[in-house]
């Protein structure tokens, strides 16, 4: 294992007003890994994702990315270190076309690698190519998720954060998206950190996983270990296989 993880989250506590949303959370993501964070509604998964991006800020603890302390950097500076995010609710630009959305993703390099990268995104999600002149807001949910991930990829990220990519999507589309993530990781060595409620799919996809309950990381291990764990099975899997 590499000496230093790509993303190192240590002892993070995040508050909304006086309410503690994250309680001394430790998470590491190594270069080239897919790491999944699973947990129920309101466990603090998305809060951790947003804290890594500096909004809201962690009250205590440190977040290090590729050797740089990013705990107190402004959000756009963090993005410039090549952490890309497909945020919760996708947050594509609804009145801009698919192409303009992808261009916005490439604005870090001022569209220098745009032509090259856009072909990669279209290779990954051929559906987006068919919809190129369409407005983001007119896409279906699955297409919007593809666009959101595609837009994040346009920034040539070292680390891709995905917040619930399967949310509200049909099983077939979820499979397509998970396959795409796996392909990205395998062919390009992209490091992915994803937050999911769809525990079964996420743990099958991931090398390692964390389980979060009430703002604490209660369990961690490889994807297979967690899938086999009786507690995890009881809490997240047996209720209904997604």
């Amino acid at each position: 294992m590499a000496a230093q993880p790509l993303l190192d989250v240590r002892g993070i506590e995040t508050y909304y007003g006086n309410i503690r949303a994250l309680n001394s959370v430790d998470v590491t993501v190594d270069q080239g890994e897919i790491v999944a964070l699973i947990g129920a509604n309101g466990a603090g998964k998305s809060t951790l994702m947003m804290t890594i991006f500096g909004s809201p800020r962690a009250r205590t603890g440190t977040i290090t990315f590729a050797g740089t302390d990013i705990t107190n950097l402004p959000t756009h500076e963090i993005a410039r270190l090549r952490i890309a995010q497909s945020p919760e609710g996708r947050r594509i630009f609804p009145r801009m076309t698919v192409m303009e959305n992808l261009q916005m993703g490439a604005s870090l390099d001022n569209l220098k690698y745009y032509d090259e990268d856009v072909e990669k995104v279209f290779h990954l999600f051929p559906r987006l190519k068919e919809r190129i002149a369409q407005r983001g807001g007119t896409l279906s949910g699955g297409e919007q998720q593809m666009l959101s991930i595609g837009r994040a990829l346009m920034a040539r990220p070292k680390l891709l954060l995905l917040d619930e990519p399967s949310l509200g999507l049909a099983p077939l589309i979820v499979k397509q998206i998970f396959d795409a993530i796996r392909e990205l990781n395998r062919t390009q060595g992209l490091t992915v950190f994803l937050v999911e409620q769809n525990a079964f799919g996420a743990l099958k996809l991931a090398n390692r996983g964390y389980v979060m309950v009430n703002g604490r990381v209660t369990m961690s291990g490889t994807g297979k270990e967690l899938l086999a764990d009786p507690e995890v099975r009881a809490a997240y899997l047996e209720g209904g296989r997604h």
Partner: protein
Amino acid sequence: MAQAVSAQRVAAESNFSEAARQALYAGLISFGLFVLFIGLRTDQNIRNELILVQRWGTLAIVVLLTMAGRFLFVAFAQPAIAARAAARAKATAVAAEPGALRKNGTKLAILALFLYPIFILWAVGLQGSLKWVDNFGIQILIYVMLAWGLNIVVGLAGLLDLGYVAFYAVGAYSYALLGTELGWSFWILLPAAGIMAAFWGVILGFPVLRLRGDYLAIVTLAFGEIIRLVLINWREVTNGSAGISGIPKVDFFGLFDFNVSSDIYFGKVFGLAASGAYYKIFLYYLIVLLCLLTAFVTIRLRRMPVGRAWEALREDEIACRSLGINTTTTKLTAFAIGAMFGGFAGSFFAARQGFVSPESFVFLESAIILAIVVLGGMGSLMGIAIAALVMIGGTEILREMTFLKQVFGQDFTPELYRMLLFGLAMIIVMVWKPRGFVGSREPTAFLHQRKAISAAFTKEGHG
């Protein structure tokens, strides 16, 4: 073929007879309704007795107007609406190839703008042209420029600014004060006024960086009022509510000017009789050029990273930040550039009026400019220009409608009804085209071919 034509004719004839019938009914109903309201009026005579005044003429006008309205509606409007509905049912998602007029619309509009004063001169002569060039030309174009400037802030960056008139005021007072005190030329002070307004735009921008939507609107509204109150109360500098007069006119780069007493007066240089119309025509072309500059800069900026960042900011601020866009500088540039054009328009306004006072910069002006932007379709230059033409031109036309005094009595002043016109236009546009005249946003990036996508297929909101 012949059969089809005759069938159409039969349809048209039945339309007209139906319309005439309905007009007759409408006339009868309105007569019945209004005979006691309008036809007869109770009044007091000099001995305090109640008398009955008969107003058959007014009643007849009202009834005739009703009949004419009903006739036109049934004969023309209804078939047109039905035909449009039928056409829409047939139309596909991708709009048809735009026609020649549509393609060259912008060029034709610019050409018409340049030919307008020549046409007016030819039609009504030098003295008669004053009203048409000044009231209908310059007045409308000032609002076009202001609305295009505000469009950068509201339409592109999505920052609701209710105090835009403040920057207009800053520009106007910059030129008025520096022009009268230092005697500098308009051509130096125009950019200076723009920079000054942009500076105040940034000053306003800083405290409101964290605000959005209605909160931002309230703070900008307050900012507009603060500037106006400072102008009223800082008497030593701004001369209070009495305003500043004797603001120098614009000259033509020192080659000739428009002061009758001057050696290089335009009339003298070209051997023409003295007239105020030269200056107005000169100002007209000046504001046309300023408007074109605004449009050009807006169109260029939209295709540049900063312009795209503005639009992305309007769509989703959080997504913007997570893509590495510095939202602080993006907002500040939007405020600054929008304010700069407001400043340009302000200094032009001061030069045109020769007099400025705080009264020209009340909240109503901000509201009118914003209404034009919203009516025109946020972000669309052409739509905004049309909205300004209709709104400001409409107000000016109301002033001309003195014949209405024959109908409603001598104390009727049509221009007081301009707010009614604004409200009516607003309701009509919002019912039929909730996104403004030109509601569809023109994409700035194309792969191979353009595809127009109508606003009707886009839903408001996220996801």
